[in-house]
Each structure stands twice: as C-alpha cells, then as structure tokens.
C-alpha cells in the first residue's frame, strides 16, 4: 500500500506551468528516484508533497487520508520529511536546536526538554549509523554532517516518507555512497525514500523505482533492476524528450599569448593557492563541486574582492556572475538599464546622458543577444530566466568588444532551457574566436566538455588538475576528490 500518493497536482508560477496533473505513489521499503532536467518541475512537485508549496489543483494523500490543511507542519505531523537541496538549517543554532525546532519536547512553563530530545536523537543516530555533533554550531559543520542532521531531523519527527532534493549535489562520490547506504537501511526498515536527482548513474545503482518528469509532466514511472545500464540509457531519451543535442563543433585551437595569469592567489579560507593561465582565444573550464572556492575566485578576478596574497595579471576582465538575480541584474530596472549597467559614463557628457547614443547601444545589444521580447523598456524581472541570462551575457560580451580581453563566466546556463543554452554557448565560442580569453566555471561536465580546450579541476580552494576535454567523468571525479587521475 502506498504511503504517499499524489493526485493530479498542478502548480503554475505566473504563465509558467511548473507541474501539470502529476499523479504518483511512493511505497514503503523502496528507494524511488525522480529524475528530469533542470527546471523540469521535480523540486516543485516534491515541495508540494511536503506541504511547503500549495498546489493550484490536486491533492496529496498520506496513508489514504488527504493532507489538509496543506502546510509543512501538517505534512511533518503526518510523517512526511523533506531534506531540501539548500539545507534548511540555521547556522547560528546548535545541531540540537536545529533538530528540535518545530517539534520541541517541553517540560513545565514551556521549557525545552533537552534531555528528552537528546535521547531520542540518540536513537535516530544509531539508526542511520552516524555520530551527530549535537552541541556544535551548524555553521561550523561540513556539508556531510549537515545532511545527516537534516535526515536525523526528519526521522526525529518519525518520518515514514523521506524526500531528498538533489542530496548528492554537494557531496563527494564517497559521501554519496555512504548516503545511499544509509537510505537503503532506512528503506529496509519500512520507510518510503524519494530521491530527486539528475544523476543517472545514481539511479542505476540505487533506485528501485524511477519516475521521469519532463516540462512539468510525469512521462513514465517504472520499476528498475538495479545496476542495469540498458534501462538507464532508455531513460535518458525520456528525460530529454529527444535525442541528446549534437555537441557544438569546436573550432581548432589557435592559442595566442597569455591573456590572464593568476599566480598563487589566496583569499581567507576559501582560496588556498590558485594559479592558472588562459591564453587569448582559448576557452578554459573550471570544474568542481559547488563551494570549493569557485565563487570567490570569480569575485577576485572581477576585482570585487582583493586577494590576501598572490597576483592577477591581464585584463581588463568582463564577468558574468554566478547569481544573476542578485549580482547580475537590477531586476526592477529596465532591460535597457541592465544591458549597460555600470557603463553610463560612456554615454554621459558633463554628467548628462546622450539619449540617442544610449538607445543605439541598447538596441544593438538587444538584437545581437536575441532577447525575447525585444523591448528595452520592460523590467528585467518580467523576462524568463534564459532571457535574463542573455541580458547579462550580452553586457559581458559587449565589453569584450570594447576594452575587455578576458571573459569570466560563472555557470552560464544554470537554470536555463536548452534553446537559450545553445545560444549562450555560441556567444562564448564566438568571443574566443575573436581572440578573447574565456574562463568558464561550471558544475556541468557536459557543458565544459562541449566548450573548453582545457578543463581545470578545482577542489578545496585550489586548482588540482589540468585535463583535456576528453577526460572521463571518472578521471575528473577522482581529481575533485584530490586523488591522482587514474
């Protein structure tokens, strides 16, 4: 009998239908993988299961009783636990406080009953086979500990359904293995485990059932034989909805002089010692698990933060930042203002803007970037994610036509649909062909392979490997762990 059942769930954000009439059941004792591309609606679907997002239509049933009211508190009370992709833990609270929060045992006068909480967490810790540092502040813990804490928190509330959203995105392969071992044990104890992922090898190795989501709809749900490559290959076609796109034809490299040289750069604890160089016309990728110093490296290259030691030579540098909504765009300003953000001095004489020159430049950038709709007076907020990214990229590319000799791009296509991704990649290739040195930071190995002449691997604040784009996932993965390439 299914523990958690979804009936025709539908959810829209504005015009975008994130999930459409999704029906699904999760059974106890099984690890159920939900796969799909970025933005396919997996996360929205499961946040509805956990009561965090309220569906526009449809219902969630726990043990055949409807989840009502549709709140996180009710879902938790009914035994649905969720581990968010971005952990919902409070950094300045202790681990104990985090686990208790929302389900605190009390004694008289509303006092917290620490002893009772500790003993119950002790039981949970034994079940997942982990030691939990209960008195440590969460901000001092590593991601592995934090994730175990999230799982412990769900089990502490007697979760019978455990939903994990991309749990391995931030883990090393070894940590991921350990996680799945834990999940298997929990499933065997009679819980329903749901894992959202886009890593097919994990599905192959660990899932009992798989559901494919594409553009908000459930394409297929079926049981899997563990470790069967053929079944997984068949799935990938279902996920993409068509054959995998042709890799973009890479031009032959004619590397010029060194255009960017980074030597021994340190920054706090984030960058231990980074050295790299990029030649004119070259595209160099930086691969790595998020949070290994990529963000800080980009900020140093952009000149926003000053390195504690080391040198950066070359430039001027044009940068596309990682977080486009926060650092890339002024969402409430017009597309026009965003296309030339920070360049107003170029259009000003004695402090007064030359409106015609401004409009001409905006129109040119708008057209060359293929932004839809091509209306410079709209607020940037009203554009889709892909078009927002085109605005940011158009600005950075335009600067490479002015003074910039180096283009640094962080996660060019994160959260962007395939069509727009293609357009963005072509712009990067075009910039390189004009002799610009391009540095691409990405967690997407396919993207890096398609674009780059070389792939650098970044781990724990340092560049640990320099590989050709033909390197296998295995080699790159080993490098990320700090092990020598096989």
């Amino acid at each position, binding site marked *: 009998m299914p523990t958690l059942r979804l009936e025709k769930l539908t959810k829209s*954000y*504005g*015009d*975008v239908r*994130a999930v459409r009439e999704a029906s699904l059941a999760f059974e106890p004792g099984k690890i159920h993988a939900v796969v799909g591309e*970025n*933005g396919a609606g997996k*996360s*929205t679907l499961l*946040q509805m299961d956990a009561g965090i*997002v309220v569906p526009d239509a449809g219902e969630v049933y726990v043990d055949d009783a409807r989840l009502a009211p549709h709140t996180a508190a009710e879902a938790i009370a009914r035994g649905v636990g969720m581990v968010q*992709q971005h952990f919902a833990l409070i950094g300045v609270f202790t681990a104990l406080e985090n686990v208790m929060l929302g389900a605190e045992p009390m004694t008289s006068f509303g006092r917290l009953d620490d002893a009772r909480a500790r003993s119950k967490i002790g039981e949970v810790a034994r079940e997942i086979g982990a030691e939990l540092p209960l008195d440590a502040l969460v901000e001092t813990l590593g991601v592995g500990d934090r994730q175990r804490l999230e799982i412990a928190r769900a089990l502490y509330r007697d979760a019978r359904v455990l939903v994990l959203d991309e749990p391995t995105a931030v883990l090393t392969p070894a940590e991921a293995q350990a996680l799945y071992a834990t999940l298997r044990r929990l499933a065997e104890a009679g819980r329903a485990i749901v894992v959202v992922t886009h890593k097919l090898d994990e599905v192959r190795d660990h899932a009992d059932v798989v559901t494919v989501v594409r553009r908000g709809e459930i394409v297929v749900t079926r049981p899997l034989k563990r470790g069967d490559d053929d079944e997984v290959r068949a799935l990938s076609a279902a996920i993409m909805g068509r054959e995998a796109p042709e890799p973009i034809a890479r031009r032959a490299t004619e590397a010029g002089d060194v255009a960017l040289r980074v030597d021994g750069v340190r920054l706090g604890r984030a960058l231990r010692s980074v050295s790299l160089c990029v030649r004119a016309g070259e595209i160099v990728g930086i691969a790595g698990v998020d949070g290994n110093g990529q963000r800080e490296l980009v900020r140093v290259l*952009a*000149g*926003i933060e000053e390195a504690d030691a080391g040198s950066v030579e070359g430039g001027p540098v044009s*940068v596309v*930042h990682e977080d486009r*909504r*926060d*650092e*890339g*765009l*002024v*969402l*409430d*300003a017009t597309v026009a*203002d965003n296309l030339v*953000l*920070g*360049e*107003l*001095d170029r*259009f*000003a004489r004695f*402090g*007064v*803007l030359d*409106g015609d020159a401004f409009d001409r430049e905006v129109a040119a950038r708008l057209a060359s970037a293929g932004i839809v709709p091509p209306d410079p007076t709209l607020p940037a*907020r*009203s554009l889709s*994610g892909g078009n927002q990214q085109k605005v940011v990229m158009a600005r950075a590319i335009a600067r490479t036509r002015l003074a910039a000799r180096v283009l640094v791009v962080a996660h060019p296509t994160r*959260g962007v649909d395939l069509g727009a991704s293609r357009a963005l990649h072509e712009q990067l290739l075009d910039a390189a062909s004009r002799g610009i040195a391009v540095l691409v930071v990405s967690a997407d190995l396919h993207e890096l392979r398609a674009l780059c002449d070389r792939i650098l691997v970044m781990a724990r604040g340092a560049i640990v490997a320099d590989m050709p784009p033909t390197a296998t996932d295995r080699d790159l993965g080993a490098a990320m762990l700090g092990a020598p390439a096989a």
Partner: protein
Amino acid sequence: MKSAGLLSTVTGLAAAWIAFTLLVWLYGESPRELASQLFDGTWGSAYGAGQVIFKATPLLFTGIAVDLALRAGLFNIGAEGQLAVASLAAATLGAHLGAGVPAIVAVPLVVLVAAVAGATWAGVPAVLRARFGAHEVISTIMMNRIADSCVALAFANGFAIKGTVRTPDIVSAARLPKLERAVHAFHGSAASVAIYIALGVALLVGAWFRRARLGRELVLVGKNPRACAAERIPVPRRLAQALLLSGAIAGLACLATVLGYKGYYESGLGAGAGFGGLAVALLGRGHPVGLLLAALLFGTLQQGGLAINGRVPMEVMDVLQGVVIAAVALADARVRASLARMVGKARPA
C-alpha cells in the same frame, strides 16, 4: 503601474478621511461641519489658498529631499535637523550682508549657504554610511537632536538678539518677495516666490533622475546595490552623494520660512517640515507632480488644522500624516503582492 500609483493615493486619502471623521466624532464634534470649516479656512478663499501654498512650500522642498534619498534606498529622517541648521546659517549670513549688496547676489549667496549647511548636516550620516556602513535611520535622527542643541547653543552664544531666541533681521535684498505683490488676492498670506523655486527644484530633480548619469545610477543603486557593486558602480560613494544632495535640498526649505516669511530665524521655525517631508515623499512617489500634490495636501491639512483648532485640536492633522503614510504603504504592498502573482515569482530551482 500608473493605475497602481493612483490606487495608493486614493487609499491614502480615503484613510485620512476616515481617520479624520473618526477622531472628530470621538471628540464630540460634527465631522461634516468641521470639514466645511476646514474647507472655508483653506481653499474657500484666496487668502486661505495662499496660506496653503505657504505651508506647502517647505514641505515640497523636504519632500523632494526625502524622495531623492529614498530612490537611492535611503531613509533621510534628518531633514528636520538639516533644515534647522540651514535656517540658522542662511539667516545669520543674510543678517550680516552689507546693505549695498544687490538682491541678484544676495539671494543666490544665501541659497547656496543654506544648501551647503543642509548638506553638511547630512554629511555626518553620509560618511557614517559610506565609510562604516552605519544605518542612516538612527544616525539622521540623532543628528536632528544634535541640531536642536546646536541651534540653542548658537543662540546662547551670540547668534541671537540678546535675550531672545531669534536672529537679527536679514537684509531686505536677501528676502524673497511675497506672492501678494503679484496676485493681490493673496493679500495677507505668507506665500512667497519660494514656491516657484521649489517647483523648479522638483522639475530639475525629476529631469536629473532621467537624464543625468548620477541620478540614473542612484536609482539603480537603490534597487540593487549588490548588482551595481558587481558592475563597479561605487555604491558607498553614490549613497553618500544621495544623502548630501538630500540634505542640501532639505536645507533649501528655509527659503520659504526664513527668506520668504519671517525675515529671520527663530527657534522652532519650520519644525515639523522634515517629518512632513517623509509623508510627502511617500505619497508623492517619485514624480514632481505627485510631490507637489502631496505637499499641497499636507499643506491643506496644516492650514486646515489651524482653521478648526478652536473646535478640535489641530494635532488631529499630525495623526492624519501618519495614517496616510501607513495607508499608502499598505496599498503599495497589496499592489506589489498582486503584481508578483501576475508576473510570477522566482521559480524554485
């Protein structure tokens, strides 16, 4: 967006009306009679209208000042103190100008000094914000208090006519003519040509936000300082500039009180205009016409308060200011929420 602004304005007016009716009724008076008395004392006669314009003029200056800072994302709650210090500086200079200085020199000179004094007073919060990141709300409020003490200190130490809390009269060349000289119907009202200067400043600032590099960047900084910093716009410096300009314009409000009305500065002259400017800015919503209408509305309330003071305490009108601010913000928040629903919020990844 236009209709959204209209909705907020209407909500603000409706809330003011309801609050007025309620308070008057609680006081045991007839709201209808008082409303008509209020009208008679303001727009009901040319003199009343002139007095409304007189009350609205400093509010328009401070409203523009607060609005300018607000567009850069800053709350300048210090217009009150900036105005006090500027008034003292302008009046003192005005009193000490030689008799032979012609108006064409005297007025601009005094205006300049007023602006510089206002900007200087705003300079402390500006530096604290730009250099140390200290929030301007508390620092501008503290500067208001410090201004009060400084003015008292100055009055006690030679700036005032001995034994009084007022400066000597300014020379006649530095005074601004009253409107009654052009429009005889305004006879007796204290409205002066300062209103034209205020309107000019409003239009100038409006154009500056559209066409000047600095104005445009300030708006962008107000909307997302992080993105601006990432694109190398010097955010702290821009914030400081916004506060300085805001202080300068707040200081200009003394044109209406010192140069256009009394001809000298006395303790308490222009008090309340700084806080009134907050209400004007929040209601006027970053548009010159909106700011003018808001200033006239609050000018009407102030003059109307005097007109009804015999029957209902004029402090009712201060309460209405607060009610209007809250109501407009409330309507704005509602509009924002429904806009967000229409456009679509950030999709969870």
